[in-house]
Each structure stands twice: as C-alpha cells, then as structure tokens.
C-alpha cells in the first residue's frame, strides 16, 4: 500500500474481494451456505482437467469480447456491440464450416476463422465509419446493430441455413475439417484467445499503429497535432474490435458448439465489457479476468448441485465488482485508502456527440 506500484494491483483485487464478501452475505441471507458456494465454485472451475477445460472454454469467448472492447476503449470508443459482432462471426463461420465441407483442414479451418473475423468486422466498420464521417455516436449504432444482428442470425439459423430433416432452429454440424480440438486437455480456442491477447497487447503497446490509436484515444487534439488521422484511427479501431469479436464467435462455433444455434452465445459480448473493465483495459490482464469470470460462469451447475443456490448470484457478484472497479472512490472510502497519484478511473465516454 505504500508504493504506487502496488496500487493498481490492489484496486481490482480489493474490488473482487469486497464483491465476493457482499456476495457471501447475500448467499447467507438467502439461507444458503457461503462455504458450500465457495466449494462449488472451486470444484466446478478448477478441480481436475475437465473442470479446468470447462472454465477455459467459458473464458474463451469472454477473452475475445474483452479484447474487442479494449481495442475500442484505447482509441476512445465504446464498442457495446461486441455481442452482435460475435453472433455474426459465429454464424458465418459455422456456415462456412458445413458448407465448405471437403476442404483439407489446413485450408478449411483458417478459412472459417477468417470468414468469422471479416463478418464480425463488417458491422463494426459501419459503426466506425458513421462515427468518423457523420459523427454518429458508436454506442447508439452498436446497440441498434446488436438487435438487428440477433434477429438476422436467428432468421438465418431458422431459415436459409437451417439444418434440414430436424425441427431445431440451427445450422448443420460443422465438418470435422473445420473443428478445433483440445490439445493436451486445453481447448485450442483458449490457446488462440491467449495468443490473441498477447497479439493485441503487442499491437496496442508496442507498435506504431497502437500508438496512433492510443494517442487518438488519449488526446484527439494532440493526435491532430502529431499528424495522426483521427477518422482513420476511429475506423481502424472499430474494425479491429469487431474482428476480434467475430473471431470470438467463430471460435465458439468451431471449437465449442460445433454449429450455430440461436441462444448459445447469449450475453457473451456484454460480459466482454465487464471483463475489459475488470482488467482495467489492459490486454494481458484480460486473461486472468476472463478466467475468473469463466470460472464463475462454469460453476452454475455446481452452485445448484452443491449449494442449492440460484445461478443468478454470479451476476449479482459481478455487478458489484464492476461497480467497485469503475468507482474506485467507493472502494477507497470502504477501505479507507489514501488517494493515490496514479490514474484509477476508467473512462469510456466523452458524451454522445464529440
């Protein structure tokens, strides 16, 4: 607590700890045992290879969505539409996965991933272009696009791309040549997500491109002074953000679900916001944050089985943690911390217009 080095560590840890404590109190108030709940989460999330794999599978799309949100925030943009972009990525990659069956795996799988990436990038590109050229706020456009894309994918999965000969609204199964397997018990999708976290970290923190985005995000006027195109950076950041979300969707389809089925990817994009904030907009920190939330999400079975606890408790705890991370003031007040010199607030918006 004495040094500024420790402070950024302290904040999220304290936020989660306080949130968990409040969660435990709620569990207690609901007449269940916090100990049993804790045990359930531990067992569900980390006991044994399968449990860990399940946790990581839950964490995978969250990681991608979190990265998508981060890329936007770095450039001063709030991509609340990761959900919709993820869905499009999921369905188009699934379509390519069953439609192009017969291709060799070395071609098929990368092709499906690429299609997912592109189709996720497309709606985000629209939002970016509208922002850069027309000044339309990306939050509004991406909220609108979320609903549009949910409906579009539902229609595709129950209409033109529906699996024939069975009643369920879903695409046919993806061919084996486009499936992602597990390697040494670890889901390949997760490994890819971790790799992407490092790639995103590298791009944002180590490249001139990342420097451009960050400068636009931190100070548009200075970016203008330094000759960086604000419009270009806006479009690029949104597109990259959408591409990551689309890749997340593709990995869901190709690696976990095995097809596209409406409802299977619900809420992932919104969890991405939570994760990006928990990770305080740092690409590598998204990995532990996603694993943490993945663990909580993976524990819904055991929470019910062992603690007879309604799974919504996870959302309650997450909401509290998010609030505490977003408003360090509350936490400081709760924990009687001294105000620090380093920046602690996370800022996503500068209003609707500018």
């Amino acid at each position, binding site marked *: 607590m004495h040094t500024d080095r420790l402070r950024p560590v302290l904040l999220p840890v304290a936020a989660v700890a306080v949130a968990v404590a409040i969660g435990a109190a*709620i569990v207690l108030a*609901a007449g269940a045992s916090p100990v049993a709940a804790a045990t359930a989460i531990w067992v569900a999330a980390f006991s044994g290879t399968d449990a860990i794999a399940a946790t990581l599978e839950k964490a995978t799309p969250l990681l991608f969505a979190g990265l998508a949100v981060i890329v936007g925030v770095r450039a001063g943009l*709030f991509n*609340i539409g990761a959900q919709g972009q993820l869905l499009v990525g999921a369905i188009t990659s699934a379509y390519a996965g069953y439609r192009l069956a017969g291709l060799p795996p070395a071609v098929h799988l990368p092709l499906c991933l690429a299609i997912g990436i592109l189709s996720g990038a497309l709606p985000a590109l629209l939002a970016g272009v*509208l922002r850069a050229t*027309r*000044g*339309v*706020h990306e*939050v*509004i*456009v991406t*909220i*609108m*696009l979320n*609903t*549009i894309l949910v*409906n*579009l994918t*539902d*229609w595709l999965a129950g*209409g033109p791309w529906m699996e024939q000969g069975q009643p369920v609204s879903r695409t046919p199964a993806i061919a084996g040549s486009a499936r992602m397997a597990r390697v040494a018990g670890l889901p390949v999708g997760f490994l890819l997500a971790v790799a992407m976290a490092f790639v995103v970290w590298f791009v944002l923190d180590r490249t001139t491109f990342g420097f451009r985005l960050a400068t636009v995000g931190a100070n548009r006027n200075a970016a203008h002074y330094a000759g960086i195109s604000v419009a270009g950076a806006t479009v690029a950041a949104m597109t990259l953000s959408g591409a990551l979300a689309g890749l997340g969707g593709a990995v869901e389809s190709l690696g976990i679900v095995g097809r596209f089925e409406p409802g299977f990817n619900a809420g992932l994009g*919104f969890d991405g*916001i*939570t994760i990006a*904030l928990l990770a305080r907009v740092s690409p590598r920190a998204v990995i532990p944050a996603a694993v943490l939330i993945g663990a909580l999400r993976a524990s819904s079975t055991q929470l019910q089985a062992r603690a007879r606890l*309604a799974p*919504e*408790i*996870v*959302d*309650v705890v*997450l*909401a*509290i943690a*998010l*609030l505490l991370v*977003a*408003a360090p*003031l*509350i936490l400081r007040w709760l924990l009687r911390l001294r105000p620090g010199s380093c920046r602690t*607030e*996370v*800022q*996503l*918006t*500068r*209003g*609707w*217009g500018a």
Partner: protein
Amino acid sequence: MKRSWTGRPVPPNGLVAGSLLAAAFVAYGIWGFRATAVLGFAVRSSTPLALAAMCGILCERTGVINIGIEGQMLLGAFAGFFGAAAFGVVAGVAAAVVLGALVGAFLALCAVTWRVDQIIAGAVINIAAAGFTSFLYRPGRVIGSLPTWRIPLLGDLPLLGPVLFRAQPLTYLTFVVVIGLQVALFRTPWGRRTTAVGEHPGAADTVGIDVARYRYGNVVAGGALAGLAGALLSVEITGSFDRGMTAGRGFLALAIVIMGRWRPALAWAAALFFGVLSGLVNQLNFDRVFDVPPQFVAMLPYATTIVVLAIFSTRVRPPAAAGRPYP
C-alpha cells in the same frame, strides 16, 4: 414564418398533427376496425416506451447519459408486481416509482458526485437489475388489475375513443406526463434551467443555478418515470412479472430519445411510429397479406434509427454536456 420558442422556423405543429389525424381517419374509413386495432396497438405499445424515453430525455437534457433505463424498468416492474401482490395495485405502482427513483439517485450519485463514467454506471444498473430480480423472484403471486376507464364522450368517438380514451390509469398518466414534460421543458423556469444545465453547465452555474441539484433532481425524477414504465408493464399491461420481461424496451427507448431529438412529444411520436410498424405487421399476419419473417420486422425500428442518424446526424444534436461531469 412561425417560429418555435427556440426561435427556429418550424412547420406548424398543428398542421402536422392535423394531417396525421386526417390520415388516420382516412385509414379508418377504408379499413374500419383494422385501423382501430393497429392504432390501438401502436398507442398501447408506445406508452412504456414513451415513459422510458421520458426518463432518457430528463437525464440527458440535464447532462447525464442513462443507459440503465432497461434495468430501472425491470426493477420497477419487479417492485410494482410484488408491491401490488402484497399491498394492492396502488401501492405496487408507488413501489415501482420509488424504486426507480432510488436507482436514479444511485445513478446521480455515480455521475455527479463520484464522477464515475456514466456508461459504466448504467451498465452496472442493467447487470445488477437483471441479477437481483431474477435471484429474488418467487412465482405464484397474483395481483388485481387496474381498471379500464372510459372517458365520457371522448370514449365514444369513432377511432379515437377506443384508441385513446378507453385505457387504463397509467396510460392516461403517460399522456399527462408526456404532454406535461413537453410543456414544462419548454415553458417553465425548471425546463429552461434543465436545458441550460445539459447544454452549458458553466452558463447555468454563473447565473446561480445549482447544477448538481438539477442533475440529481432530474435523474431521480427520470428514474421514477422508468420505474413507472416498469409498473406499466407488470401491473397494468400484463398483471404479471417475469424475469427479463422488459425485453429490451429500455434500449429501444434510448433510440427513441434520439429519434425524438430530446423532445417529449417528438419522442412519443417516434414510439408511436415503432408501435404502428409492429401493429401493422401483426395485422398483415392476421389478414394473411404476406409472410414477412418476424425477425425482419423486429429489425425495422433499429435499422430506421441508424439510417435516420446517418442522414440527419448534423441536425440530431444531443445536449452538449451529456455524459460530462461538472465542474
């Protein structure tokens, strides 16, 4: 040229409203009860959206972005239903309003006092509302329903009677709120000060307007309206509570605020426009005119919003200080 109070030349509102009304009666003349049915659906489905949009207008006009409307509505629906189950419908509605206002106070606390990013604060409200209402929900309760009031004389009018004047109390209350807000925002000292706080808090401050107090007051009042919108869903329209029953109306309200250009009456018109669209689709399905995949219909309002924003973005101008803490 007629000019609005804001000084810009405007098409005379009476003429616009009059021609729309005339169009409605022409439709009624041609299609009879079908026109009544569609317009009735439009009005009924517009009321919760309009109330939620009023929340958005109040908050944003005063400089606070509220994306937590969905959560406030959900909590309002929850409190309304369980309040009604325990103490009767009036208490239920009151509970919804109070809970909505409390959540509004929380948002104001975040936005004004703690200076938390307002989008995050709204997201927290949404996540927490979904989590808490689902966690706390217990089935098996039944509530009484609100009466339908037929306004004497007006209720007997053709078309307008069934569409507007044979409704339930909260619907009438919505009419009053929308019209009242429209008048209050543009005609009363409170309204002009609210606008000033949202556009240029510094200017308001230098003439002695307490910016923080106005923001608190309006965000709390907005929360109360969002809570009322929730009660409208649970207590008045359905007489039930179900998890996630707001079904995205709080987000649609955000779009309506923008399409309504932060004006209550125009926002209501936008909500009615969405209502007419989906009522029309029901009617076309009823009458087997053609089979539109319902998913495409669901996209329509959202796609329209994007197009409108893309075309009119220079004219659709949000309150200048929305989203920014002051000082």
